[in-house]
């Protein structure tokens, strides 16, 4: 969230005309917009509610001495509360957009409005376009199809093949299986719709009537960002689980860091380069493009180093990231952008140092 907000603050400024058109569209029909938001979020909740309902009938809770009528009543109440909460969120989003009309479309209003629109619409449309059957298959306990399992490119084990025939690249570190674990988790999450739903709000900018080049640039920018977000999340999940499962082995923290850094770091660099390229294609100067790439690397590096330092607590990672990135934004807003960047890299290096000496 912090990374999203920062990117919206820092990098979507030049795209204000596109967001202005979208906000104006929503403001023209606030009632319909509210209804649409509620509907989309209601649809978004259908899958987990279905799972909950099925579990209450077929899972271990079915053995509880609770009559079906009581279960149904509890489910209805849960649905009602969810709907009210979602409508409240939608209303808050519209309110923020209405406020944005009276304010210049920069800074806080742009960031808040863009964040809310992206979150609410992305979540709703993501549900509509999610891969069919994955949630049901998970509930039944049957294996997911290979396209969701991200298994098709799994290398066979070295011990089953002549030595040297297949070798994982050395840059993946001394425990290359950890990079495979992160990669598969990231691919599965992406194919399962966890990452690419963030792209959908971009297509709503089509009514802005901008040139195809701008739209393509936006889509590429969004794709890179969504993929990076997905990779960082998946890597943090995988390395947290790996740290737990390897806890009783004598591996060193340095070995662990060397093994879990290459995958997300390589994707971070690629995303930063893509970001710079897209911004350059959109007409931003080379200096601006390079600055944007540096910001992406600094913030992504900060998040990555925090996930290494506190591998078992996502809450702690996020809290620290939020606090530190807020400090960096405040510094940048005071005109100390260069200092903020330096500080971001320094903090990332410090967290990495602590992570390498964790055990």
């Amino acid at each position, binding site marked *: 969230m912090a990374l999203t907000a920062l990117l919206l603050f820092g990098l979507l400024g030049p795209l204000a005309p596109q967001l202005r058109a979208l906000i104006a569209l929503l403001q023209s029909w606030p009632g319909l917009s509210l209804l649409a938001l509620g509907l989309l979020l209601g649809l978004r909740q259908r899958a987990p509610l279905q799972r909950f309902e099925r579990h209450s009938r077929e899972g271990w809770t079915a053995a509880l001495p609770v009559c079906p009528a009581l279960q149904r009543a509890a489910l209805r109440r849960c649905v009602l509360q969810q709907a009210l909460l979602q409508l409240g969120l939608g209303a808050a989003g519209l309110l923020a957009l209405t406020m944005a009309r009276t304010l210049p479309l920069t800074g806080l209003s742009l960031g808040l409005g863009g964040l809310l629109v992206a979150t609410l619409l992305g979540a709703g449309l993501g549900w509509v376009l999610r891969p069919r059957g994955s949630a049901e298959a998970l509930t039944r306990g049957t294996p997911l199809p290979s396209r969701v399992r991200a298994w098709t490119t799994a290398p066979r084990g070295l011990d089953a093949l002549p030595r040297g025939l297949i070798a994982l690249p050395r840059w993946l570190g001394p425990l290359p*299986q950890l990079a495979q674990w992160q990669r598969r988790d990231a691919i599965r999450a992406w194919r399962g719709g966890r990452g690419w739903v963030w792209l959908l709000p971009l297509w709503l900018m089509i009514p802005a009537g901008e040139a195809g080049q701008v739209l393509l640039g936006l889509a590429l920018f969004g794709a890179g960002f969504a993929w990076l977000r997905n990779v960082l999340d998946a890597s943090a999940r995988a390395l947290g689980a790996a740290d737990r499962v390897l*806890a009783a082995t004598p591996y060193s923290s340095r070995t662990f860091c060397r093994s879990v850094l290459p995958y997300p770091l390589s994707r971070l660099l690629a995303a930063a380069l893509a970001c710079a390229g897209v911004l350059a294609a959109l007409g931003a100067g080379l200096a601006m493009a390079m600055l944007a790439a540096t910001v992406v690397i600094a913030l992504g590096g900060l998040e990555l180093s925090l996930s290494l330092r506190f591998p078992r607590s996502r809450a702690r990672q996020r809290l620290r990231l939020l606090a530190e990135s807020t400090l960096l934004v405040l510094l940048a807003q005071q005109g100390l952008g260069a200092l903020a960047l330096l500080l971001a890299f320094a903090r990332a290096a410090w967290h990495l140092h602590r992570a390498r000496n964790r055990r």
Partner: protein
Amino acid sequence: MSQTQPCPLALYGLSLQLGGKPVLQQIAFELAAGDFVALVGPNGSGKSSLLRCIAGLHPLAPGRVQICGHDVSLAAAAARAQLGYAVDPAALPALLSGRECLQLFAHARGLAAVPAESLQLAEALGFSRWLDEPVEVYSLGTRQKLAVLLGLLGQPPLLLLDEPLNGLDPPSAWALKQHLVELAERGSAILLATHAIELAERHVNRALLLVDGELRKQWTAADLQRLRANPQQSLESEMVAAMG
């Protein structure tokens, strides 16, 4: 193992509190090389917590744990290098194959490759055909086999196994029991938390009873021989009597 080498496991006054409640209290015992020890006790008596403490997975309260002379608190890496601990089957990485898990743990233990003996044991347990399948499609028993294989990688001097026979089919359970007996004969010390009294009665050479976090009773090799010789007596009945 020569007499001058430190014993594989020594516990001195080990205590543990979780959530403010005492889980283990003043546990003290030693395991010599070749000891095959069953840790028995009712549910919630602290067997799994004791194994996790020894493996250094719980913060140690008062007390010390030494593995082959290395203090778990002071020299964790050196101590863990001498230790094999079977991972909780539910925590195995779902997105890796069994072979990749073996490679990962082998590398984490400093081994260049998965030892041939582990692959032979995999064959004996009927696990070979699952080696290249992702862990997420494994049944409970298959996960258990992998967890045991990971714990036994490299034949460390001390093995900690928590209910390793759970979910295993009879041929696999038999093969595992035979393998553990062979490992003990070759000098590994094995501490095995189990409810399988039959295993404890037939195969181990010591048994420890843990009740409410306290070591209530111990049976030496001579005690177990006496129980085996007398069909009117059993470890089960003695255990129930000792639990009060």
